[in-house]
Protein backbone atom coordinates (compact mmCIF):
# COMPACT_ATOMS: atom_id res chain seq x y z
CA UNK A 1 0.00 0.00 0.00
CA UNK A 2 1.57 3.18 -1.05
CA UNK A 3 1.69 6.46 0.79
CA UNK A 4 -0.83 8.08 -1.50
CA UNK A 5 -3.37 5.46 -0.79
CA UNK A 6 -2.75 5.81 2.92
CA UNK A 7 -3.10 9.57 2.68
CA UNK A 8 -6.21 9.24 0.60
CA UNK A 9 -7.88 6.89 2.97
CA UNK A 10 -6.72 8.91 5.95
CA UNK A 11 -8.43 11.98 4.57
CA UNK A 12 -11.46 9.93 3.60
CA UNK A 13 -11.69 8.58 7.10
CA UNK A 14 -11.74 12.08 8.49
CA UNK A 15 -14.38 13.34 6.10
CA UNK A 16 -16.44 10.27 6.81
CA UNK A 17 -16.16 9.94 10.56
CA UNK A 18 -16.07 13.55 11.67
CA UNK A 19 -19.41 14.39 10.07
CA UNK A 20 -20.80 11.15 11.42
CA UNK A 21 -19.79 12.23 14.90
CA UNK A 22 -21.28 15.64 14.25
CA UNK A 23 -24.57 14.01 13.25
CA UNK A 24 -24.78 12.60 16.71
CA UNK A 25 -23.66 15.63 18.63
CA UNK A 26 -24.92 18.59 16.61
CA UNK A 27 -27.49 20.45 18.64
CA UNK A 28 -29.77 21.39 15.77
CA UNK A 29 -31.43 18.77 13.61
CA UNK A 30 -30.78 20.74 10.50
CA UNK A 31 -27.04 20.66 11.21
CA UNK A 32 -27.23 16.94 11.82
CA UNK A 33 -28.91 16.53 8.49
CA UNK A 34 -26.21 18.44 6.70
CA UNK A 35 -23.48 16.41 8.38
CA UNK A 36 -25.32 13.26 7.44
CA UNK A 37 -25.24 14.32 3.82
CA UNK A 38 -21.48 14.64 4.11
CA UNK A 39 -21.19 11.20 5.62
CA UNK A 40 -23.37 9.68 2.96
CA UNK A 41 -21.24 11.22 0.29
CA UNK A 42 -18.19 9.81 2.02
CA UNK A 43 -19.77 6.39 1.94
CA UNK A 44 -20.40 6.86 -1.75
CA UNK A 45 -16.68 7.50 -2.20
CA UNK A 46 -15.97 4.31 -0.28
CA UNK A 47 -18.26 2.46 -2.67
CA UNK A 48 -16.29 3.88 -5.55
CA UNK A 49 -13.04 2.61 -4.12
CA UNK A 50 -14.68 -0.81 -3.91
CA UNK A 51 -15.62 -0.72 -7.57
CA UNK A 52 -19.30 -0.36 -6.85
CA UNK A 53 -19.98 2.49 -9.15
CA UNK A 54 -23.65 1.76 -9.54
CA UNK A 55 -24.21 1.78 -5.82
CA UNK A 56 -22.21 4.93 -5.40
CA UNK A 57 -24.45 6.63 -7.86
CA UNK A 58 -27.57 5.34 -6.20
CA UNK A 59 -26.22 6.42 -2.87
CA UNK A 60 -25.72 9.94 -4.06
CA UNK A 61 -28.95 10.24 -5.96
CA UNK A 62 -31.31 8.37 -3.74
CA UNK A 63 -29.82 8.93 -0.36
CA UNK A 64 -27.98 12.17 -0.33
CA UNK A 65 -30.49 13.49 -2.77
CA UNK A 66 -34.01 12.29 -2.24
CA UNK A 67 -33.94 11.02 1.30
CA UNK A 68 -32.08 13.93 2.73
CA UNK A 69 -34.31 16.37 0.96
CA UNK A 70 -37.23 14.69 2.63
CA UNK A 71 -35.49 15.05 5.95
CA UNK A 72 -34.81 18.70 5.43
CA UNK A 73 -38.35 19.22 4.30
CA UNK A 74 -39.71 17.73 7.49
CA UNK A 75 -37.23 19.66 9.58
CA UNK A 76 -38.32 22.90 8.10
CA UNK A 77 -41.95 21.87 8.38
CA UNK A 78 -41.69 21.15 12.06
CA UNK A 79 -39.14 23.89 12.62
CA UNK A 80 -37.95 22.91 16.06
CA UNK A 81 -36.20 26.20 16.76
CA UNK A 82 -35.09 25.62 20.30
CA UNK A 83 -32.53 22.95 21.01
CA UNK A 84 -33.18 19.86 23.01
CA UNK A 85 -34.16 20.33 26.63
CA UNK A 86 -32.36 18.85 29.59
CA UNK A 87 -32.01 15.09 29.53
CA UNK A 88 -34.33 13.52 32.10
CA UNK A 89 -32.50 10.24 31.96
CA UNK A 90 -28.93 11.36 31.72
CA UNK A 91 -27.39 8.57 33.76
CA UNK A 92 -29.07 6.12 31.51
CA UNK A 93 -27.64 7.82 28.47
CA UNK A 94 -24.21 7.43 30.00
CA UNK A 95 -24.82 3.72 30.51
CA UNK A 96 -25.93 3.55 26.91
CA UNK A 97 -22.83 5.33 25.71
CA UNK A 98 -20.60 2.99 27.70
CA UNK A 99 -22.41 0.02 26.22
CA UNK A 100 -22.07 1.47 22.74
CA UNK A 101 -18.35 1.95 23.06
CA UNK A 102 -17.84 -1.51 24.44
CA UNK A 103 -19.87 -2.75 21.51
CA UNK A 104 -17.56 -0.88 19.17
CA UNK A 105 -14.52 -2.39 20.80
CA UNK A 106 -15.86 -5.91 20.70
CA UNK A 107 -17.13 -5.71 17.16
CA UNK A 108 -13.85 -4.23 16.03
CA UNK A 109 -11.93 -7.08 17.62
CA UNK A 110 -14.25 -9.64 16.13
CA UNK A 111 -14.09 -8.09 12.68
CA UNK A 112 -10.32 -7.92 12.72
CA UNK A 113 -10.11 -11.50 13.90
CA UNK A 114 -12.55 -12.43 11.19
CA UNK A 115 -10.54 -10.68 8.54
CA UNK A 116 -7.36 -12.32 9.74
CA UNK A 117 -8.91 -15.73 9.44
CA UNK A 118 -10.64 -15.10 6.13
CA UNK A 119 -9.11 -16.81 3.17
CA UNK A 120 -10.19 -14.01 0.84
CA UNK A 121 -8.81 -11.01 2.69
CA UNK A 122 -5.60 -10.74 0.68
CA UNK A 123 -4.58 -7.22 -0.10
CA UNK A 124 -4.81 -6.02 -2.70
CA UNK A 125 -7.68 -8.17 -3.91
CA UNK A 126 -7.89 -9.57 -7.36
CA UNK A 127 -9.63 -7.19 -9.72
CA UNK A 128 -13.34 -7.82 -9.91
CA UNK A 129 -14.35 -10.49 -12.39
CA UNK A 130 -17.82 -9.13 -12.99
CA UNK A 131 -16.70 -6.66 -15.59
CA UNK A 132 -18.97 -3.73 -16.03
CA UNK A 133 -20.47 -3.01 -12.71
CA UNK A 134 -23.84 -1.74 -13.77
CA UNK A 135 -24.33 -4.56 -16.21
CA UNK A 136 -23.32 -7.12 -13.65
CA UNK A 137 -25.64 -5.70 -11.04
CA UNK A 138 -28.45 -5.63 -13.49
CA UNK A 139 -27.86 -9.20 -14.51
CA UNK A 140 -27.98 -10.45 -10.99
CA UNK A 141 -30.83 -8.18 -10.01
CA UNK A 142 -33.14 -9.40 -12.71
CA UNK A 143 -32.35 -13.07 -12.49
CA UNK A 144 -31.39 -14.21 -9.08
CA UNK A 145 -32.99 -11.27 -7.31
CA UNK A 146 -36.03 -10.98 -9.47
CA UNK A 147 -38.47 -11.95 -6.76
CA UNK A 148 -37.13 -9.54 -4.11
CA UNK A 149 -37.06 -6.88 -6.73
CA UNK A 150 -40.73 -7.37 -7.43
CA UNK A 151 -41.70 -7.72 -3.84
CA UNK A 152 -39.84 -4.66 -2.72
CA UNK A 153 -42.24 -2.74 -4.86
CA UNK A 154 -44.99 -3.87 -2.51
CA UNK A 155 -42.89 -2.48 0.31
CA UNK A 156 -42.70 0.85 -1.43
CA UNK A 157 -46.42 0.78 -2.07
CA UNK A 158 -47.04 0.11 1.61
CA UNK A 159 -44.79 2.99 2.52
CA UNK A 160 -46.56 5.35 0.14
CA UNK A 161 -50.02 4.35 1.28
CA UNK A 162 -48.97 4.49 4.88
CA UNK A 163 -47.29 7.84 4.62
CA UNK A 164 -50.27 9.41 2.93
CA UNK A 165 -52.82 7.99 5.29
CA UNK A 166 -50.91 8.94 8.33
CA UNK A 167 -49.93 12.41 7.38
CA UNK A 168 -53.39 13.42 6.25
CA UNK A 169 -54.72 16.00 8.60
CA UNK A 170 -57.95 15.14 10.25
CA UNK A 171 -60.12 17.27 12.47
CA UNK A 172 -59.78 16.23 16.08
CA UNK A 173 -62.61 14.62 17.88
CA UNK A 174 -64.05 13.04 14.80
Amino acid at each position, binding site marked *: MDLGTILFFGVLTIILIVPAIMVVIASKPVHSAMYLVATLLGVAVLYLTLSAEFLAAV*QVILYAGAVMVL*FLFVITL*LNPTEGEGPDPIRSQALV*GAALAFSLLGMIAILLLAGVLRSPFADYPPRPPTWGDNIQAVGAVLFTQYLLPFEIISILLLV*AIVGATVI*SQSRPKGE
Partner: protein
Amino acid sequence: MIAPLWYYLIISATLFTLGVLGVLLRKNPLVMFMSIELMLNAAGVAFVAFSRYLNLVNGQVIVFFILTIAAAEVVVGLAIIVAIYRTKANIDVDEINTLKG
Protein backbone atom coordinates in the same frame (compact mmCIF):
# COMPACT_ATOMS: atom_id res chain seq x y z
CA MET B 1 -7.38 2.69 -5.19
CA ILE B 2 -8.52 0.28 -2.56
CA ALA B 3 -7.90 -0.15 1.11
CA PRO B 4 -7.53 -3.42 2.94
CA LEU B 5 -10.71 -5.19 4.04
CA TRP B 6 -10.09 -4.42 7.68
CA TYR B 7 -10.18 -0.73 6.96
CA TYR B 8 -13.65 -0.89 5.52
CA LEU B 9 -14.86 -3.04 8.31
CA ILE B 10 -13.51 -0.74 10.99
CA ILE B 11 -15.09 2.25 9.26
CA SER B 12 -18.31 0.32 9.10
CA ALA B 13 -18.13 -0.67 12.76
CA THR B 14 -17.43 2.93 13.73
CA LEU B 15 -20.31 4.26 11.70
CA PHE B 16 -22.55 1.60 13.17
CA THR B 17 -21.58 2.48 16.71
CA LEU B 18 -22.02 6.17 16.06
CA GLY B 19 -25.49 5.38 14.83
CA VAL B 20 -26.22 3.41 17.95
CA LEU B 21 -24.90 6.27 20.06
CA GLY B 22 -27.12 8.72 18.27
CA VAL B 23 -30.20 6.66 19.01
CA LEU B 24 -29.24 6.42 22.63
CA LEU B 25 -28.24 10.01 23.22
CA ARG B 26 -30.58 12.17 21.20
CA LYS B 27 -34.05 13.20 22.11
CA ASN B 28 -35.11 14.44 18.73
CA PRO B 29 -36.65 11.61 16.73
CA LEU B 30 -35.39 13.13 13.51
CA VAL B 31 -31.81 12.92 14.67
CA MET B 32 -32.39 9.45 16.06
CA PHE B 33 -33.69 8.52 12.71
CA MET B 34 -30.64 9.94 11.00
CA SER B 35 -28.51 7.86 13.32
CA ILE B 36 -30.37 4.78 12.22
CA GLU B 37 -29.52 5.74 8.66
CA LEU B 38 -25.90 5.73 9.76
CA MET B 39 -26.29 2.19 11.02
CA LEU B 40 -27.80 1.03 7.75
CA ASN B 41 -25.01 2.70 5.83
CA ALA B 42 -22.47 0.98 8.00
CA ALA B 43 -24.02 -2.33 7.03
CA GLY B 44 -23.91 -1.22 3.43
CA VAL B 45 -20.21 -0.49 3.64
CA ALA B 46 -19.57 -3.91 5.11
CA PHE B 47 -21.64 -5.58 2.41
CA VAL B 48 -19.89 -3.82 -0.42
CA ALA B 49 -16.48 -4.44 1.06
CA PHE B 50 -17.22 -8.12 1.42
CA SER B 51 -18.67 -8.17 -2.05
CA ARG B 52 -15.50 -6.73 -3.47
CA TYR B 53 -13.18 -8.99 -1.60
CA LEU B 54 -15.30 -12.08 -2.23
CA ASN B 55 -15.52 -11.06 -5.81
CA LEU B 56 -19.28 -11.50 -5.80
CA VAL B 57 -21.57 -8.84 -7.12
CA ASN B 58 -24.66 -9.91 -5.23
CA GLY B 59 -23.51 -8.08 -2.12
CA GLN B 60 -24.01 -4.84 -4.00
CA VAL B 61 -27.45 -5.91 -5.08
CA ILE B 62 -28.37 -6.54 -1.48
CA VAL B 63 -27.18 -3.06 -0.57
CA PHE B 64 -29.39 -1.74 -3.29
CA PHE B 65 -32.34 -3.42 -1.63
CA ILE B 66 -31.29 -2.07 1.72
CA LEU B 67 -31.21 1.42 0.31
CA THR B 68 -34.72 0.95 -0.91
CA ILE B 69 -35.88 -0.33 2.43
CA ALA B 70 -34.23 2.61 4.11
CA ALA B 71 -36.03 4.96 1.80
CA ALA B 72 -39.36 3.35 2.54
CA GLU B 73 -38.69 3.56 6.24
CA VAL B 74 -37.81 7.21 5.96
CA VAL B 75 -41.09 7.95 4.29
CA VAL B 76 -43.13 6.23 6.90
CA GLY B 77 -41.03 7.40 9.79
CA LEU B 78 -41.20 11.00 8.82
CA ALA B 79 -44.93 10.69 8.34
CA ILE B 80 -45.31 9.37 11.84
CA ILE B 81 -43.19 12.16 13.24
CA VAL B 82 -45.25 14.70 11.41
CA ALA B 83 -48.42 13.15 12.71
CA ILE B 84 -47.17 13.35 16.26
CA TYR B 85 -46.18 16.93 15.78
CA ARG B 86 -49.69 17.66 14.61
CA THR B 87 -51.14 16.19 17.75
CA LYS B 88 -48.69 17.43 20.30
CA ALA B 89 -46.69 20.26 18.72
CA ASN B 90 -43.64 18.67 20.24
CA ILE B 91 -41.61 15.77 19.05
CA ASP B 92 -39.16 15.31 21.90
CA VAL B 93 -39.22 11.59 22.55
CA ASP B 94 -38.73 12.07 26.25
CA GLU B 95 -41.91 14.12 26.45
CA ILE B 96 -43.84 11.39 24.77
CA ASN B 97 -44.11 8.78 27.43
CA THR B 98 -47.71 8.40 28.34
CA LEU B 99 -47.39 4.66 27.87
CA LYS B 100 -45.38 2.97 30.56
CA GLY B 101 -45.46 0.57 33.51
